[in-house]
């Protein structure tokens, strides 16, 4: 009997084309859009050689040390050890102005009573450019100071020591994965899809409530315990939703190549817990709100708000919440699911992951209990 009911609920669910769209295809379409739009987002902060120009006038010609420094920093430099930082063009002043106006270069160097920098707008590249010119001036100043105090040093290889720059920095990776902001968008998307599983919970509870649907009335007069029916319906909803989430996950990792880390067991666990949270959330909403339109509105509205707070529209939102109002992060299931994926991807330890899973389980318990309390022992004098 159990299996019979289960299979028929499965059929009912799978044949609901509209809900299949919202729970399965909509997240996949959204993921595709995300991928198209954010594919190059992390490229934007990557360092690329800066295009600059140098006005090739008499004063520049005279300044041999500066020429040497510039050459060593150019991308066309022969020195293979150091990567070039600047793409240098040699121009006249007028040409430099034109290149600057057309945004072909970030700025140009103009020697007129000292080395000057001409730019059009402020930015990191301009700052880097300015710093390199500063450095030339500063090193000259250092040499002067040293010569004052120790004139002998010129003979003991001061110039060599200037040329020899030591790297005093050593890179320590922040974690096992690179801090790629883009992946978080996809994690919130999976979390949103999990909460959209609430649609199934909604549908199932409506289907067994005698005062909400004719099927409900029919089921209610059947000689089967109400509780058993509820369990079967919710199980069917969870099965379908879990299948959809796994499909979405497969699409993200295999087609779009989004990294979710490699702890597959934990990832599946997150999917299962997330799915159950979503479905029970929908059942909970459906049991406390009676009107059909309002139910759907409440479900979509709340899951969108939760997704927004978890950073689906603006990635920094999640960080703002976690630093300013951490409680808000802990009572938001979308954020918890997102955070599970995030901690699996980014952290070296799993303690935060388990905290999230435990809180999600508490949510499941609350949603289920409330649904149960509302649904139990309902009697109808007439329908």
């Amino acid at each position: 009997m159990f299996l019979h009911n289960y299979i028929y609920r499965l059929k009912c669910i799978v044949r609901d084309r509209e809900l299949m769209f919202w729970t399965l295809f909509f997240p996949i379409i959204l993921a595709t859009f995300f991928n198209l739009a954010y594919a190059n987002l992390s490229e934007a902060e990557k360092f690329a050689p800066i295009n600059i120009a140098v006005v090739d006038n008499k004063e520049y010609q005279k300044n041999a040390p500066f020429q040497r420094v510039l050459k060593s920093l150019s991308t066309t430099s022969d020195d293979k050890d150091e990567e070039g930082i600047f793409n240098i063009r040699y121009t006249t002043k007028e040409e430099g102005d034109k290149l600057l106006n057309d945004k072909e270069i970030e700025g140009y160097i103009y020697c007129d009573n000292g080395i000057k920098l001409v730019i059009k707008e402020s930015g990191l590249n301009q700052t880097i450019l300015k710093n390199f010119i500063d450095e030339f001036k500063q090193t000259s100043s250092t040499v002067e100071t040293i010569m004052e105090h120790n004139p002998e040093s010129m003979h003991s290889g001061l110039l060599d020591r200037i040329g020899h720059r030591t790297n005093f920095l050593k890179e320590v990776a922040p974690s096992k994965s690179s801090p790629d902001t883009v992946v978080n968008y996809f994690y919130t998307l999976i979390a949103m899809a999990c909460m959209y599983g609430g649609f199934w919970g909604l549908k199932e509870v409506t289907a067994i409530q005698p005062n909400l649907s004719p099927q409900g009335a029919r089921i209610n007069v059947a000689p089967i315990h109400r509780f058993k029916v509820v369990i079967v319906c919710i199980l069917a909803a969870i099965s379908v939703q879990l299948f959809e989430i796994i499909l979405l996950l497969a699409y993200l990792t295999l087609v779009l190549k989004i990294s979710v880390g490699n702890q597959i067991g934990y990832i599946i666990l997150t999917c299962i817990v997330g799915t159950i949270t979503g479905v029970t959330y929908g059942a909970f909403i459906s049991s406390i709100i009676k009107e059909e339109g309002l139910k759907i509105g409440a479900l979509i509205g709340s899951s969108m708000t939760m997704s927004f707070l978890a950073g689906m529209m603006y990635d920094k939102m999640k960080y703002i919440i976690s630093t300013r109002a951490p409680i808000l992060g802990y009572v938001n299931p979308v954020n918890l699911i997102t955070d599970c994926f995030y901690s699996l991807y980014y952290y070296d330890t799993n303690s935060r992951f388990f905290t999230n899973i435990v809180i999600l389980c508490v949510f499941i318990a609350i949603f289920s209990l409330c649904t149960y309390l509302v649904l139990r022992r309902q009697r109808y004098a007439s329908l």
Partner: protein
Amino acid sequence: MLVYKAFFKIIQKNILQILIYIVIFLFFVVLIANTYTDPTNMDFKESKVNTVFINHDEDSKLLEGLKEYISQNANLIDIPDDIQKLQDALYFREVEYIVKVPKGFTEAFMKGEEIRIEKTIVPDSASSVYMDNLINKYLNTARLYISSIENLSQQQLVNYIGEDLSHETEVLLFNPDPEKGKNIRRMYYFNFLAYSLFAILILGVSAVMIVFNQPDLRKRHSCSPLKLKNMNFQMILGNISFAILVWLIMIIPSFIMYGDYMFTKKGLLFLLNSIIFTLPALSISFLIANIVKSKNAISAASNVVSLGTCFISGVFVPRDFLGETLLKFASFTPTYWYVKSNHIIANIDRLKEEDIRSILTGILIMLIFALTALAITMVIKKKKYTGQVSGS
């Protein structure tokens, strides 16, 4: 004007869904207004990288000097030395560079031994190139002094370095655009308008057309004394007035926020561009409205079409980040041309003839889109109609 009235009655029934989009739009518009920064500052501003400085060594003069120098050239952010907190901050770009000075650094450094500071960065980022250079510059200068002048105290050393590093290059600004920051924000306003407008038009027009396209209702209409031509005319009038109404609601905030600017040449161009965009949006909505069969499919169609075209045309993400092939593909949507023109309007200092020409091209293409979609709809309607007549 029975049909015309019926049109707006149906819209009224669906006002809740439409209101959601208007609220989202207003929310976004307010968000733009609040991120408004003072654009009057015309000086060269050095970009400052958010940096965390963690010292495991003693509080030596050398490190104090280094920290002071970093604080002058970067924003020092105070985050406790906790791995997860630092990882979070780096991930969400609250900081982009973390410096950790190991124990015994000062002593080893003063003796000239090899020792390194630990850095944690966003890999391959421009900000890390900048900060690397900054710190290396300070320490290399220090090393140079230590190796060249004997018995130098840390205090003296820091003074010398401070003196050297205070030399700065003069920066000249060439023909800067004072309105640029503002213009970019105005562009985001009008770009985002494309999303809300499109979504609302699809929702509204479809809601009405689905009612009018019900087979029984159509048959009833066909035998009414109202001429088909007259009915179609009222229908078109309804569609156009609905579109213009939505457009007006969408542009009102721009007048409140930008005031007189909207009456300058650029402001008017933004407005012109947006009303032209309304036409293809309307006729594509009309096309969709005649294809979708059920009420439930409307919200799906309006979400997918409006979100999709906006994502690939650069409404949500700046156009510069989108790939070449994607943009080529996107050029088959009117949204692409609308956003492109907005870009031109926002980014140029003075409107040149070639800019006007490319804006006009955009307008022309949008109009062609409008006509094409309308023509396709007419063919579909005709086919459906004849099918119905001969079928029944």
